[in-house]
């Protein structure tokens, strides 16, 4: 790995930490407050691509594990992995990787703007929502004994917020792609 990639990974992990410091926004029509940090998965995949995005999140999880309060709300430490949402937190790495794979496959420079938007949006939804929940929900169910169906029903409350995050991440990722493209690894 060259030094530039290493620095990009570290800077993105730092961005994810900083996103956790931004106070969460509550919207009237969505029951759950929106934290900027959970958009990090979609952003990292769509901006840095599969490998570097996943490594940025691995680095971020390392910060959590060694006891830095970097999760939004000042949470951190090994306890968050032992809790029910540990699967979602560990799933971030895989989710970022999948988001990055799809984004790299479908988004190219010189495509019409709309196609790039669609590519980023699909990547964010499949990676950042489908894959993440496919890991996180069975984990919750396995660890707490709550039936998977009940967990899935409860998770629906997060869906509108997640779709909104995918939309914001799409627009932001496309802005970065136009201004400073990093998605495809430079030779």
């Amino acid at each position, binding site marked *: *790995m*060259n*030094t*530039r990639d*290493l*620095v990009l*990974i*570290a*800077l*993105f*992990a*730092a*961005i994810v*930490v*900083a*996103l956790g*410091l*931004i106070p969460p*926004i509550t919207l009237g029509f969505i029951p759950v407050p*929106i934290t*900027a940090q959970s*958009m990090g998965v979609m*952003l990292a995949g769509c*901006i840095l691509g599969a490998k570097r995005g996943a490594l940025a999140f691995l*680095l971020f999880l*390392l*910060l959590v*594990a*060694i*006891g*830095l*309060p*970097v999760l939004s*709300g000042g*949470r*951190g*430490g*090994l*306890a*968050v*992995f*032992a*809790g*029910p*949402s540990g699967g979602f937190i560990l799933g971030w790495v895989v989710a970022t990787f999948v988001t990055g794979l799809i984004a790299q496959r479908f988004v190219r420079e010189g495509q019409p703007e709309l196609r790039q938007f669609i590519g980023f949006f699909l990547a964010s939804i499949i990676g950042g929502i489908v894959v993440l929940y496919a890991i996180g929900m069975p984990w*919750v169910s396995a*660890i*707490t*004994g*709550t*039936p998977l169906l*009940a967990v899935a029903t*409860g998770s629906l409350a997060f869906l509108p917020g997640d779709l909104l995050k995918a939309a*914001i991440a799409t*627009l*932001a990722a496309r*802005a*970065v792609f136009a*201004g*400073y493209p990093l998605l495809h690894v430079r030779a």
Partner: protein
Amino acid sequence: MLTSLHIEGDSWLHRLPVRAKLLPLVALSILLFLSGSLPVQLTAFVISGGLYLSVGISWREALKRVGFVFFTIFFLAAVNLFFLPLSEVGVLTLRLLALVLFAAAVTATTTISAFMDEITVLLSPFERLGWVLAADVSLALGLVLRFVPDIFARYQAIREAHRARGLPVRPLTIIGPLIILTLKDADTIAAAIDARGFRRQ
């Protein structure tokens, strides 16, 4: 801005090497997931809770750290009451509480540098395979800690710029510039690292 969750102290948990804390944590989680007995879970819960409170942490801080995880555990326990018999809900809930408390105790008694030393050891097999350099991981961690305050200051500057122009502060209009401005520094930082020969390549 980024203060570690480590608590200064001299309890015997503080003096144990990291590995002697992480291995029992792993062992405890395996044991508790294999056991379905309420007394076992209750004992583990009492011991873990005792350990956590014995590390010199104030009640308030202790509760603040595990509060959110506890909230999700109790919420799911309340949901479980509709589906499972009471004794089983008790086992499931106590098991999670015990593990969370034990993990929080390990975090509170271990310094970042002790964790990093352990990570270096854990990475050594991968280092031999040529997959990753432990020094790179430390360098990346150091970079994150170095740049978080800068990035947050940049976020505040962009927010002020919005206000100065009378624009509403929206995540969308902030995140794009924040990421571009931050990642554009990568080339300069990488050049500075290489110029100092930190990675010996």
